[in-house]
Each structure stands twice: as structure tokens, then as C-alpha cells.
């Protein structure tokens, strides 16, 4: 199977597949998010402890979960790239980095906006917040490393090693609320067996998480196409793409 993927011919296949899936994923994402927001902001009741402020959960938790999910995707693709020399895996990892960074930033900002009214502080150097901040720096480091090394192959390999090593931070983020119990509340929906959240709040939350995942998928498909175009710019299949031919005719 890996040999099949490894083939040079898979780049056009992935490029076209990503182009086909893109619009479907995009529209589904929009619908899921709109329904999730409607149920979360309007239909769901206020929290008995936190009042209306808890509604920040509908963007904070999806952003935080995705910030880790995207990193795992990046680390696994990087490992695949390092072990099997699969170029497309590197394309996916590179495409994921800015998205993951933006989700991490979003998790930190919305968490801060939630922390102020509930904890009385914008920021605290506890395990969860600090390890999430470290995640942001891992994304930045990955992107900076790629940009700093001139030779593309060396840049890809160095960045992939960083991504793989940095994955150790993910369990730290996840278990931080149990290991060092401070202000951040423990997990709500991922508690196995006994979720402590009512369906009227859980359903919109799950929809928003799914919506964020679809957004990630939409963007990563698009950015993978960009990465393939850049790497395969000199090949004849790229030159013969209908969008390339029309784009060339419109321009010059």
C-alpha cells in the first residue's frame, strides 16, 4: 500500500481528489457550524454555575481539541515522511502547521476571555495554559525552521524531526489538568463513562468540534494542493491542468 502511495503518480491523484472533496467539505462545514452555533448560543440553556459565560466553550474547546489533533496529524505525517520518505506526507505536515498554530492561538485567546470573568485572571502559569503556549511555540518553531533552512530537503527533514519530538507535549497538555490541578477545570466530554454535560449543551459542542474538524480538512486539502503545485511545478501533468492553462491565458 505504501509503495502505491509512494509512486510519483500519486501526486496528481491526490491533487485532483483534494480538489473534488474541497467544495463538499467546505459547505458541510458551514452548515454544521451554523447549526452548532444556533443550538449553542440560542437554544442551549445557561450554565447553573457560570451563567451565559460558559458559551465560550463552543469555540474554546473545539479550538483547543483541534490544536492538539492537528499537531498529532503533523507529527504522524512527519514520521511517515521520515521513515518511508513519502513526499506527500511532508506536504500534509507543512500544510497543517499554520492551521494548527491559528487554532492554538484561538484556544489561548478564548481561554483568556473565559478565564477573566470565571477565575478573575486573564492568565496563570499553570500546567494546561503553559503547555498549550508551548504548543504554539512548537508550531512557530516548525514553520520558522522550514523558512530558515534554504535547502528544501534539509528543511523538510529538520522540521519533521522537530514535529515528531514535540509530540511529547500532547499528552502533557491532555493530562495537565489531572497532574497539576489548578484553575483549569478537568475534561468534560472526554471523561470516559460518565459525561458531566447535559445533551442540550453536549450536542452543540460536538457539532462545533466536528465543524472545526471539517474546517481543518477543508484548509488542509487546499494547502496540500498548494504544496503539490509548488513541488511539481515543472512537471507536464501540472502544465496540462485545465486550471493552469486557463490561468495562464487570463494573465499575460
Amino acid at each position: 500500500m505504501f509503495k502505491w502511495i509512494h509512486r510519483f503518480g500519486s501526486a496528481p491523484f491526490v491533487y485532483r481528489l483534494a480538489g473534488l472533496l474541497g467544495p463538499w467539505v467546505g459547505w458541510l462545514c458551514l452548515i454544521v457550524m451554523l447549526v452548532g452555533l444556533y443550538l449553542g448560543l440560542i437554544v442551549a440553556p445557561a450554565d447553573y454555575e457560570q451563567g451565559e459565560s460558559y458559551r465560550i466553550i463552543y469555540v474554546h474547546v473545539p479550538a483547543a481539541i483541534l490544536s492538539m489533533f492537528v499537531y498529532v496529524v503533523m507529527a504522524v505525517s512527519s514520521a511517515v515522511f521520515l521513515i518511508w520518505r513519502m513526499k506527500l506526507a511532508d506536504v500534509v505536515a507543512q500544510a497543517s502547521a499554520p492551521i494548527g498554530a491559528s487554532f492554538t492561538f484561538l484556544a489561548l485567546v478564548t481561554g483568556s476571555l473565559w478565564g477573566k470573568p470565571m477565575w478573575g485572571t486573564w492568565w496563570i502559569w499553570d500546567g494546561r495554559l503553559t503547555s498549550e503556549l508551548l504548543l504554539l511555540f512548537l508550531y512557530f518553531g516548525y514553520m520558522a525552521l522550514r523558512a530558515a533552512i534554504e535547502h528544501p530537503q534539509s528543511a523538510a527533514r529538520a522540521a519533521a524531526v522537530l514535529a515528531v519530538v514535540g509530540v511529547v507535549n500532547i499528552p502533557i497538555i491532555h493530562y495537565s489538568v489531572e497532574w497539576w490541578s489548578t484553575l483549569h477545570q478537568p475534561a468534560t466530554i472526554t471523561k470516559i463513562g460518565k459525561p458531566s454535560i447535559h445533551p442540550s449543551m453536549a450536542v452543540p459542542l460536538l457539532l462545533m468540534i466536528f465543524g472545526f474538524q471539517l474546517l481543518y480538512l477543508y484548509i488542509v486539502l487546499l494547502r496540500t494542493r498548494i504544496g503539490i503545485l509548488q513541488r511539481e511545478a515543472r512537471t507536464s501533468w501540472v502544465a496540462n491542468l485545465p486550471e493552469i492553462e486557463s490561468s495562464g491565458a487570463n494573465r499575460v
Partner: protein
Amino acid sequence: MSDVAAFFHMGGYAAYVWPSMLISLVVLLANVFISRAQYKRVLRQTAQRARAKAESSTTGAKNQNVKS
């Protein structure tokens, strides 16, 4: 208080809830539009390069296979 006003008031937490929603919207849309713009830009650059290559090969350039 009307329903609409109550909705925007967010039980007194409007100053925290709405900025959260706004920044999320901005970040998500920025992801979409920056990526789309970049895709179009790369498409255009690739097309220009492919055209240049096609022209150089039709004018009989012998180094068409040399990677530039």
C-alpha cells in the same frame, strides 16, 4: 428586556462572549481566505512558468530540459 437584547447582553458576560465569537470568526475566515488567495497566486505563478517553458521550447531552445 427583549429577547434580542437579552441575547446580546449574555447575562452580563457580553464583553467576554462576543469578543470570543468575533476572534474565532476572524481566525477561521482568515484561514479560508489566506489559503484561497495563496492557491490562486501559486496557480498563476505556475501557469506563467509553464507558458514561459512552452514558449522557449517552441522557439527551438535546446536547453528546455535543463532545470532552471
